[in-house]
């Protein structure tokens, strides 16, 4: 077992498993699991409210994690970090609250056809509520939104652009900085779905100059159920709250209420403090490995997987022919075999991949494939995992061909 897999108890438990579904969720290292357990063993109480020492410890754990997250993504202020359950919830907050603030009839919202359903359906709903128009950007053959495509689709009515930084199917990273500059010049506010990007690349929200940035913890080695919405303070201040209730108020009387200051205005109800502590530990974990190592390993393994698969004449791979640009995400089909059969037959050979539409049905139709298989790599994978994937692909093909 390679030294990186050894950090993960699940890898020690399933020694023969080639886990290649990291774009769905990553495995969790000891460091994260232990941090969550320690929090519940030694610091658990309801934060922000209690007037006793243990509650203060829980509050500190919660707020220290927020500080670490702010530093990790280069946010200017801690209060720009809102805890959520996951990227989907973060994107829903932006789509509901920002559209309530900004949108009028006939305004336009711009997204790409590559969006995960979580950065598509909230905008469909927002467009319906405000009688606005949802306009689509289409990628080039490598999965990139070109400057021209953006310029063609922006209009005086485009109030919001919400774009994935890295497609969960094609693995291509958008040239966000340039795209954001152009959108801003058009007075368009930019929201970024960073769920797939943040596990693979160092993010600096101020350098990108995005107005909102959403991501999940569970794809970057943290527990499920904790996510983040970063938003520029000036917008978060103006936006109405999303959920209302406990912990998010300033003063309440029978008919009205005033709301708490940022970030608490967007954090109704008792929060997932254990998850926040786990996310903080996941950041420590990633920093201890280092993005240099993460990027190098994922790039090399992605290239290896893409090149080996593309040698098989019955395999079609989607996206850039330069597989080092895929961030370890390889979407493919084996000719004549449905991805669900492929995934089941991979599973019986201890290879875990995803098969289906990847929560991106419009993109699948755009690629004219309806569904596909996806192997997605994390830095803890190794050549042995990829070799298993390739060998199993050959086996599945011969198994089905033998039946003809």
């Amino acid at each position: 077992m390679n030294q990186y897999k050894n950090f993960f108890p699940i890898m020690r438990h399933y020694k023969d498993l080639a886990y290649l579904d990291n774009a769905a969720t990553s495995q969790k290292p000891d460091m994260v699991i232990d941090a969550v357990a320690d929090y519940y063993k030694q610091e658990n109480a309801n934060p922000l409210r209690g007037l006793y020492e243990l509650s203060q410890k829980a509050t500190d754990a919660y707020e220290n994690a927020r500080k670490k997250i702010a530093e990790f993504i280069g946010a200017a202020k801690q209060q720009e970090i809102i805890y959520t359950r996951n990227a989907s919830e973060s994107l829903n907050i932006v789509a509901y609250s920002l559209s309530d603030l900004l949108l009028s009839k006939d305004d336009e919202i711009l997204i790409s056809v590559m969006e995960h359903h979580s950065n598509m359906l909230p905008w469909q709903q927002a467009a319906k509520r405000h009688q606005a128009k949802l306009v689509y950007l289409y990628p080039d053959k490598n999965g990139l939104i070109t400057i021209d495509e953006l310029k063609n689709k922006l209009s005086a009515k485009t109030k919001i652009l919400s774009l994935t930084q890295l497609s969960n199917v094609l693995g291509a990273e958008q040239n966000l900085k340039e795209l954001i500059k152009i959108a801003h010049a058009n007075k368009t506010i930019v929201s970024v779905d960073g769920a797939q990007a943040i596990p693979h690349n160092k993010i600096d929200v101020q350098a990108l100059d995005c107005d909102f940035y959403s991501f999940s913890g569970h794809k970057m080695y943290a527990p499920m159920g904790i996510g983040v919405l970063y938003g520029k303070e000036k917008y978060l201040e103006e936006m109405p709250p999303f959920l209302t209730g406990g912990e998010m108020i300033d003063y309440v009387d029978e008919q009205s209420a005033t709301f708490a200051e940022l970030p608490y205005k967007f954090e109704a109800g008792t929060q997932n403090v254990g998850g926040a502590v786990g996310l903080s530990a996941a950041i420590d974990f990633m920093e201890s490995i280092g993005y240099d190592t993460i990027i190098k390993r994922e790039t090399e393994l992605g290239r290896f997987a893409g090149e080996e698969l593309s040698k098989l004449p019955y395999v079609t791979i989607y996206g850039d022919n330069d597989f080092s640009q895929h961030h370890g995400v390889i979407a493919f089909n084996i000719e004549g075999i449905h991805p669900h059969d492929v995934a089941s037959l991979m599973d019986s050979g201890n290879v875990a991949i995803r098969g289906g539409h990847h929560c991106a049905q419009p993109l699948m139709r755009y690629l004219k494939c309806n569904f596909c298989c996806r192997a997605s790599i994390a830095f803890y994978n190794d050549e042995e995992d990829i070799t298993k994937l390739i060998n199993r692909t050959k086996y599945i093909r011969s198994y089905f061909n033998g039946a003809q």
Partner: protein
Amino acid sequence: MALNNIYNEILMEHNTHPDHKHKLSVSSDCKTAINPNCGDEVLVKKGINPSCGDEIVLELNIEDDIIKDAAFNGQGCAISQASTDIMADLIIGKKIDEAVELTDLFIKMVRGEEKDEEKLEQLDEAMALKDIAHMPARVKCAVLAWHTLNEMLKEKKTAE
């Protein structure tokens, strides 16, 4: 679980060479099989598996309460395609009530709720899908056609 318990010869054969994957020839005054004006004899129903987007369209030719012919179209995985073809084999010549009972039995079998081999023998080749019960993620693929048929026959009964 051993791979060949699921992807066995029967399933692979029905997937590769389905007997009933075609459009039913219906009376000449009917332009398309999906046209609701086709007449009472041809029933058409579409089934969708939302988790994978698989779609099948089932067509039945029913006369005097007996399923005279059955056919399907659509795309899907080997399990859903073979399961549909096996089902068509099984129900042709059966009375509506018998077919409904068989679909109920099949659904119980793949959910692991019915294990009595004697009862299950009524399912004939569809017994080849018994071990799907051990692959919960794929049960939906196997039952798509059977659910669709079950619903369409019950709808017909209700309409009468």
